[in-house]
């Protein structure tokens, strides 16, 4: 614990990088995953069930496999090697986007599908095509979708398998909370690793509490306006 207090500035930099990487990954995943999930919820095409099963299954992508795939893409010998992104925070964001997008898409699909059924009469009477109703449905479901984002954030902030491969756990560059914990564990500093784990859990709780407070307030305002 003493070490944590002593290494204050360093620890804060690591915490901030963790948040930066994971929040950015969730943001990008939301931009990709939400429209995708909503489109999947309202559209009807052959093989749709299969796509839904696949997206749901991808929620369980093993981080270490994603890390390896992203490494192979970004390595100097890989197809995107010229971009020199390996061992940068950007590489870590890319890997986490791959992990989080299916979670956001699958949960969005579920929420929107239920909502679309509820609204189907109304939307049909207004003559809105299925896909055109996507933005409306997303907006109406925004509070429920926060949970989808939080699930994605939980996955991103907690995983170590992908970021340690594509980030390299480089001090002051790509070292985040989970890779620091892995490093301290391998140094046999179990008490320090555990204390860092407690901080990580604290961050997750803080982010969730913040989001929950904001959405509660939004819900409240929505009710008073209506």
């Amino acid at each position, binding site marked *: 614990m003493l070490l944590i207090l002593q290494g204050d500035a360093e620890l804060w930099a690591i915490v901030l990088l963790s948040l930066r990487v994971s929040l950015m990954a969730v943001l990008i995943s939301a931009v990709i995953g939400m429209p995708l999930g909503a489109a999947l919820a309202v559209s009807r095409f052959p093989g749709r069930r299969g796509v839904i099963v696949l997206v749901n299954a991808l929620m369980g992508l093993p981080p270490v496999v994603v890390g390896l795939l992203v490494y192979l893409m970004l390595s*100097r*010998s890989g197809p995107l*090697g010229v971009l020199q992104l390996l061992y940068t925070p950007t590489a870590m964001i890319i890997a986490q986007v791959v992990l989080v997008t299916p979670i956001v898409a699958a949960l969005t699909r579920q929420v929107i599908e239920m909502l679309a059924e509820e609204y189907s009469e109304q939307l049909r009477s207004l003559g809105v095509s299925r896909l055109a109703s996507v933005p409306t449905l997303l907006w109406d479901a925004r509070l429920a979708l926060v949970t989808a984002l939080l699930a994605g954030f939980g996955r991103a902030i907690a995983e170590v398998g992908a970021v340690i491969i594509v980030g*390299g756990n*480089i*001090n002051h*560059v790509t070292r985040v909370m989970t890779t620091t914990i892995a490093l301290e564990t*391998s140094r*046999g500093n*179990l008490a320090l690793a555990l204390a860092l784990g407690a901080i990580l859990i604290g961050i997750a709780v803080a982010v969730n509490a913040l989001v929950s407070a904001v959405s509660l307030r939004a819900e409240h305002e929505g009710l008073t306006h209506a």
Partner: protein
Amino acid sequence: MVGIRIRTLLMALGLMAGGAQAEEAYIVLQSTTSTQNSGLLDHILPGFEAETGIDVRVVAVGTGQAIRNARNGDGDVLLVHAREAEEKFVADGWGVERFDVMYNDFVLVGPKSDPAKVGGGTDIVAALKAIAQATAPFVSRGDDSGTHKAELRQWKEADIDVAAASGGWYRETGSGMGATLNVASGMEAYVLTDRATWIAFGNKGNLEILVEGDPRLFNQYGVILVNPEKHPGVRAAAGQRFIDWLLGEVGQGAIASFRLDGQQLFFPNAR
């Protein structure tokens, strides 16, 4: 006409490369867990960084993985400890030249209860034979690292087929030195480790050094510049500067001055 165009293009590329080099004053060092976990790199690198302004970004993995990463061009300098693999790396053209940097040694660590009765010995091969005889639990890195290669050499010399015992008394973790030491500590097993990681390790539990001082446990580290002819993206100038520094008086002195618990963990031996 075409000649001029190509020359202009090359000049533009050269300018871009030069610009990129000035901007990116850093190198990626592919190294082993022992140099990082022991704290050696944290001790010596600030000196180089202050002197040159070149930031050294360390990726600490097992020697096998470090070499594979460097082969892929994902690193500028390689600092590892598996001489044969290093020489092959250079012979295959992936590296420019290999230099000795420093050495330390491996030690056999095991439970204080010492079921195979090997404590106090200096003959690693005899100790391994006794462990196999007693079928006492032994934890191996199993990850193609420098330490793993060194361990397998000793088993070979002891004429023991560990593959046959895998999953029984012989356990392969497939992990780094620290993770493997945690396993050994948890199950009170024997394990071969480099001395530096062992001394710096914080979770020794019931383990202690049982066999040391065998010349066969010598552990040499080498440094290699990744070949820019194979990977044009290699920051060769900065990488060479780091190697020169490491092999020079200042770098060697920094290695010698690194101490933990009053012990010197690495012994510089660049020629």
